[in-house]
């Protein structure tokens, strides 16, 4: 199955891309996808960063199981205001 990943802020700069589509196995979790992305984009690993995770624009935990055509975003520390 395929999922869509969007990158923002420091992760967008590190990935060198704003979006990616990834083929992943059925039953893959957010954590599994992050491992794949770190392999494909080695610079994504920002030392000491605390990420949050969103699937289809809702916060989830790393053990959340992904479904086909989910939109997944790894959210670096927010700093609005």
């Amino acid at each position: 199955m395929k999922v869509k990943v969007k990158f923002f802020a420091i992760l967008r700069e590190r990935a060198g891309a704003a979006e990616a589509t990834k083929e992943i196995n059925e039953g893959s979790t957010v954590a599994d996808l992050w491992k794949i992305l770190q392999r494909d984009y080695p610079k994504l690993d920002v030392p000491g960063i605390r990420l949050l995770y969103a699937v289809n624009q809702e916060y989830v935990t790393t053990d959340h199981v992904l479904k086909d055509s989910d939109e997944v975003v790894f959210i670096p520390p927010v700093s609005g205001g």
Partner: protein
Amino acid sequence: MFRVTDKPLVLQELIEFVTDPEAGAITTFIGTTRNNNDGRKVIALDYEAYPEMAEKELVRLGEEAKKKWPICRMAIVHRIGPVQITEPSVMIAVSAGHREAAFAACRFAIEEIKRIVPIWKKEVYEGGEIWIGTQSGQPLPGR
């Protein structure tokens, strides 16, 4: 009214949106861009959002505020893209029957924005740039 925009913010639009015949108070908050941070001289700020989710989170925090305090209406607009020093980056307006609820909900809104809404600020300062909160910046080319 809960949105992100790349246009300059206009407080009067928010005030008109929250104006309500049952309100005895309207509080407003304006976040502005400062020329210094942590001892760095800031030249400019650049905001980025995950717009669809940011707007959903703003709606959610507005609903939460309505459960906590007897308020009438709330408006939040956050600017994205480059924002010059002294310009507003966020505006909040809250109307309520009485001032206590209006002040409390306005304070709650800005604290929630800073805690959980997917918006990011890049600070460009003399000698480099940094995504605030990540502790990891890239020096500007040639410096």
